[in-house]
């Protein structure tokens, strides 16, 4: 057990660094660049019951210290993820992986999670509740405690693996939603998903993103993420996985001091494909810099 190891829902992670869903595919593109077994684990591309192309392009907009994406959960669907992506992943990643699941109805979530639960490669199930609920006028599950709890219970009923509920920050009271998920049986909470943002092309007088709005991520949102991780970590008794704009080892430590047991890194992978490897390599120096023996010692030191 090294200085960097943390325990997430009973599983020992070599380090707290987890590439976030949607920025790391199913791993093998990055495996061509470095040995991804250096990661704590990673959260694979958001998977849905049916295959999805996602949203029309352009799907990407640049911002100061960040970007907006409107990919729209493009993925081959759970069956192909299991039949084609996971076998490919098996060749290059030998740790329990985090399966990221999205859905548009409670039953969608349950269906997809049940199938992924059976894959022994899968060590964690991360449930993205930021998706629109087709049965309530497209309102996101993640914006109401009751809806988030309903998804959590349905998923818990079909899996024995740790269920991590990934929350949307586009809410008035993140704590009430986190607590509802905890009460519904969530084994951990991960946050924050992207903030809703928009940019306009002044020359063409149209939104840069074809769907007008999209998810804003990058260093710009880090202070909001730290705040929400702090609020949630101090309100629930389950582990919190912190994410949102983490770019360097110092950011990892700040997020963990705020209350995160592990961290996810998203946009940074897109700018520097080696970001997670570089951060992991730099973490020991950062621990020395701040006189920290083991990284687990600082989880939630801010009271």
């Amino acid at each position, binding site marked *: 057990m090294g200085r960097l190891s943390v325990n997430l829902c009973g599983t020992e992670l070599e380090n707290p660094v987890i590439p976030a869903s949607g*920025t790391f595919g199913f791993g093998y*593109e990055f495996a061509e660049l470095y040995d991804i077994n250096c990661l704590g684990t990673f959260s694979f591309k958001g998977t849905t019951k049916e295959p999805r192309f996602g949203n029309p392009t352009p*799907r*990407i907009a*640049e911002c100061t210290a*960040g*970007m907006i994406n409107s990919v729209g959960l493009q993925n081959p669907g759970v069956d192909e993820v299991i039949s084609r992506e996971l076998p490919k992943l098996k060749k290059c990643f030998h740790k329990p992986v985090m399966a990221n699941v999205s859905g548009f109805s409670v039953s969608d979530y349950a269906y997809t999670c049940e199938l992924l639960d059976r894959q022994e490669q899968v060590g964690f199930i991360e449930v993205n509740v930021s998706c629109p609920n087709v049965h309530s006028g497209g309102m996101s599950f993640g914006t109401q405690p009751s809806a988030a709890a309903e998804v959590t219970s349905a998923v818990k009923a079909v899996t024995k693996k740790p269920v991590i509920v990934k929350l949307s920050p586009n809410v008035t009271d993140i704590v009430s939603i986190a607590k509802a998920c905890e009460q519904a049986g969530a084994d951990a909470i991960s946050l924050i998903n992207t903030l809703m943002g928009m940019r306009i092309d002044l020359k063409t007088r149209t939104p840069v993103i074809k769907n007008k709005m999209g998810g804003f991520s990058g260093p710009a949102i880090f202070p909001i993420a730290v705040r929400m991780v702090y609020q949630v970590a101090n309100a629930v008794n389950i582990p919190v996985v912190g994410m949102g704009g983490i770019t360097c080892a110092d950011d990892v430590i700040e997020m963990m001091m705020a209350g995160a047991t592990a961290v996810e890194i998203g946009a940074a992978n*897109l*700018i*520097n494909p080696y970001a997670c490897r570089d951060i992991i390599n730099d973490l020991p120096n950062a621990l020395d810099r701040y006189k920290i023996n083991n990284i687990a010692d600082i989880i939630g030191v801010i009271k």
Partner: protein
Amino acid sequence: MKQVLLTVKENTALTENVFQMKLEGDLSEITSAGQFVNIKIDNFYLRRPISVCDIEGDALTLIYKVVGKGTEVMSKMGVGTVLDVLTGLGNGYDLELCGGSPLLLGGGVGVPPMYLLAKRLIKSGKKVAVILGFNTESEVFYEREFAALGCDTKVTTVDGSYGIKGFVTDAMPENYSYFYCCGPEPMLKAVYKHSKTSGQFSFEERMGCGFGACMGCSCKTVTGYKRICKDGPVLKKEEILWED
């Protein structure tokens, strides 16, 4: 893909807003014409993808148009500036299928990738014809460079101020064995319609990462969903499904 540091050796204007930048460094990952590099620019979050115009040993030539604040900063970079660049991105053109007398069509900033392509086709003994399309005389660049390679080179301008009046499609010859095309989407569609042979098109899309991770630049093709940055930017005529 490889992340390398490249040093600016030259950065000069070819036209009012089209610049030529020569860079030096490890280019080992750049294997084929039609690939691109992705450049980090200080104070801008996303990298800037620029297609490869030419490569000679450790010397890379890029030609880019100033379209926004990022490329404007690029245009002001001095010799000696060191850039963080992701190299060897994209599939590039397939040279196998081109027959004996391929036709290359480039429009605007779609012209640069045609240069390395022409160079390699000629080197492999092909008889290469090139049509370069621009809006007006002041925007024309690289005609001499293509001619110097030994290409049969035609230039078209929309306003007729230079070369043949009209679009590249107005200058397409009767006979060619295959074609390669890069330019704005309306041009690609016109060539798709007018072309009598098979060929390859290079596409543009707003990219997030540029190396296949973010699914930001996906498109639908006959053979399924493809990522312009990784499975493209070059698609074969037979694969293309025009949206709209």
